[in-house]
């Protein structure tokens, strides 16, 4: 599995064999992971390398992926099925690589210290609360892409992800889960994470006494991001414009003036920031919804028909085993830089602050209504007065989009479906909470 060759040689070999459309991809990476539990820990040092080829003509095609260095001499599979079309090279705008791409991976002692500190902070925040397990992955990678259509790109990434599971001390306590991602693992703060876990545990331990309620609802970034992601068909792909038509009001809007949705594959400082996507197409900032008005969907090069100007580099290719597929890169609700999340809470006279999703939101097949399992705090006069758990946040999609009253500046991303989806804390009116049966 170690051919010792290059993707240029692979491209040359296949082109000489008569294939008109050929693309070769090579990725190398290294990562340090630590899995932590109260009874053991496992440190893993991975060096991963692999390559892949897409080749075909108008009638048939194949995909071949292998670990190790590229090998132009492998026995290729027979082509079959549909024909293959690849994108041509397109120039990208200037881009400066982030400075922390080369920062060293987190050390074993650092990782162990991080988890010990987090367990200690969690117990300080909420006596008896325990960290059941934690998984930290800190890695860097470099990928190269060449194609018969003169695409030649190099992309580097640096991503750290963290998965935490914790539980409270109460007999009715259920486990809680927290997933976050950053460019650099050293940005994970044990104190801040312990506070978030403690809040999630607190609200998980008690059920709401009301069977249903309305009021002002403050959605934490993870809740709002989950809803945006669940509605991704409204923003992404060639059917998006059609799907939003029933949501358009007499002013031509699908949402409130506070609704501005953006996708930006080169968002500075973001986790997946890159000049090109997984097919070598330049990434860029695209406004999908502007102050409530739908502008355009997020489209890959092959989805925009006769109008290539609509295309954006939005093909995700997480690794050499993966085929590229269109997805959000960094899809986010534009924050309001002047408002702190704490101000939104303080100004809440009566309502709920929903801080976690207990599962994926459910969207009706015609995008008319939604239901999301949530947990959070009841708020009165800007202060928490109780908790709500095992409740559904329900309403019409139109009410959700039009009910966004204000936003904070705390834009936070969650890794969803391979891409990053983000939102600040948002204040929404018109939705309802219902007890789960």
């Amino acid at each position: 599995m170690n051919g010792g060759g290059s993707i240029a040689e692979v491209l040359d070999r296949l082109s000489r064999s008569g294939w008109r459309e050929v693309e070769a991809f090579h990725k190398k990476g290294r990562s340090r992971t630590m899995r932590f539990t109260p009874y053991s820990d496992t440190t893993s040092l991975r060096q991963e390398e692999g390559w892949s080829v897409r080749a075909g003509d108008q009638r048939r095609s194949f995909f071949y992926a292998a670990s190790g260095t590229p090998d132009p001499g492998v026995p290729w599979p027979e082509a079959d099925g549909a024909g293959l079309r690849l994108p041509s090279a397109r120039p990208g705008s200037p881009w400066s690589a982030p400075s922390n791409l080369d920062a060293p991976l987190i050390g074993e002692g650092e990782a162990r210290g991080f988890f010990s500190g987090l367990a200690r902070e969690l117990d300080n925040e909420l006596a008896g609360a325990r960290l059941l397990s934690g998984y930290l992955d800190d890695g860097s990678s470099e990928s190269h892409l060449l194609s018969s259509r003169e695409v030649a790109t190099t992309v580097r990434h640096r991503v750290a992800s963290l998965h935490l599971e914790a539980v409270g001390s109460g007999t009715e306590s259920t486990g809680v889960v927290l997933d976050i991602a950053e460019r650099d693992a050293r940005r994970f703060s044990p104190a801040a994470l312990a506070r978030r876990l403690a809040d999630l545990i607190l609200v998980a331990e008690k059920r709401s006494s009301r069977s249903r309620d309305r009021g002002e609802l403050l959605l934490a970034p993870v809740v709002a991001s989950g809803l945006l992601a669940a509605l991704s068909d409204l923003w992404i792909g060639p059917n998006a414009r059609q799907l939003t038509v029933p949501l358009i009001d007499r002013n031509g809007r699908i949402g409130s003036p506070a609704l501005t949705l953006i996708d930006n594959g080169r968002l500075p400082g973001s986790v997946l920031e890159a000049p090109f996507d997984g097919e070598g197409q330049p990434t860029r900032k695209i406004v999908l919804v502007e102050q409530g008005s739908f502008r355009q969907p997020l489209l890959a090069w092959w989805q925009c028909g006769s109008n290539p100007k609509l295309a954006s580099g939005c093909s995700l290719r997480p690794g050499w085993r993966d085929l590229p597929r269109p997805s959000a890169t960094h899809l986010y609700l534009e924050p309001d830089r002047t408002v702190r999340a704490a101000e939104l809470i303080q100004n809440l006279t009566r309502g709920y602050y929903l801080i976690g999703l207990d599962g994926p939101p459910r969207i009706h097949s015609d995008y008319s209504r939604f239901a999301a399992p949530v947990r959070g705090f009841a708020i009165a006069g800007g202060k928490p007065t109780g908790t709500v758990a095992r409740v559904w946040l329900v309403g019409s999609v139109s009410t959700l989009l039009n009910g966004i009253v204000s936003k904070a500046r705390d834009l936070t991303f969650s890794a969803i479906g391979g891409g990053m989806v983000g939102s600040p804390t948002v204040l929404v009116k018109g939705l309802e909470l219902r007890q789960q049966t």
Partner: protein
Amino acid sequence: MLGSMSDAPFTQLDTAGIARALSQIADRPSDLADVFFERSETIELPPASQAPGFRVWREAGLAVRLVREGRSWLAGRDHIGPRTFNDALRRVARAMPRAPYPEPELAAEPWDEAPEASEVLTFPTTLTRALRTHHVDFSIDLTLRRHRRWTRVVGTQLASGTESENFYSCDVEMPWGRYGTLLEAFDGESAEDLARRLVNLYRARDATPPDAWRGVSILGASATAILLHEAVAHALEADTLAHSGHPEAALGVRMGSRLLDVFDDPASAPEGVKRAADDEGFPVVRRCLLRSGVIEQPLCDTAWARRSDRLTAGAGRRGNRHLAPGPRSSHLELVPGELSRQELFADAEGGLYLPEADRGHLDPITSEFALHFPYGHRISHQIPGEPIGPCWLKGGLRDLLDKICGIGAQSKPAGAGWCAKDGIKLPVWATCPEIRVEGVEITP
């Protein structure tokens, strides 16, 4: 279609030299050091409209591991060779001798056979023919895969033989839903079985879910297999048990009905996936998880077995070389009871027959359990009658397993599927009879 390489890609390894090299880093009496060799291939035929049309993934690599006093270090590489082995060895070593042993010979057999799978290419036609015999006509998008994997573990004290697995998976997209399963082969028999399941789904596509029901329910062999996987196997994995104390404390605890005798036996799994050793190189055992409803031996890997004389290793599984092993089941067996099908369905008028489950979940903290059935039938005149729509079985684990009140006499391979606990995808298999439960709540 298996080429000569497939039989034993790791026969030429210098196991003595590897063990000697590993002994350099296992310098304490209780240390465990090993190297896991892996080669795998997946061949996929996507739906006809999708490009690229024929897809192949081939991987080879190794991972060196050191286990010491509750801590593990693992170094994985995507290549098999003396240098990568030595580099991985240095990465996990807490200290290396000043004069290390020479690099061992690490020549895996060359992989020069062409990636072919004619049985994958012909299966769509075979399945279409099988569907036509049921006189139904609906569109399906098929994704078919053949999975092959070879592994070998060499440690300081043992060297397993090469383990191989060869099986197939199938994902079917239909206008009203999705169906996925694992198969032992792509042949006429499996096509007929798959066609029958798809037709059942088709005929129940518009059926109304049942009202909440607490009477008799009969679970088909496939549904029983998924229930056992989620409710017994996951609950008895040592790392799950550790959420609420030492796994050893579970031994001898009653978990369910006295009718339940449940084993995990990788050696009696279907022909293509049966195993002699686990992914840590330990010989597999016919592990009795439940005897008469009482916990006898949880699922343990080496790390857990080293913590207690009463726990037995041999159930360590790895998703791939880059992941540490964990305790998992491979092939579950529910020992058949004595009830004929007629006896199983006796006095069950108006009850529910639930032939298949498509997903389940066990909360390891609260032991709350949920199992989803994509469709079922209302029992009428002691046989499955009119179809019913999707429904859930929910409740506490102990309560649910206590309410199993009858076990069929006829056992069969059933419920094969992917387990995705902790995001690690592993194929699991089962051999089960049908079971009868009473007093469990089934809800829409």
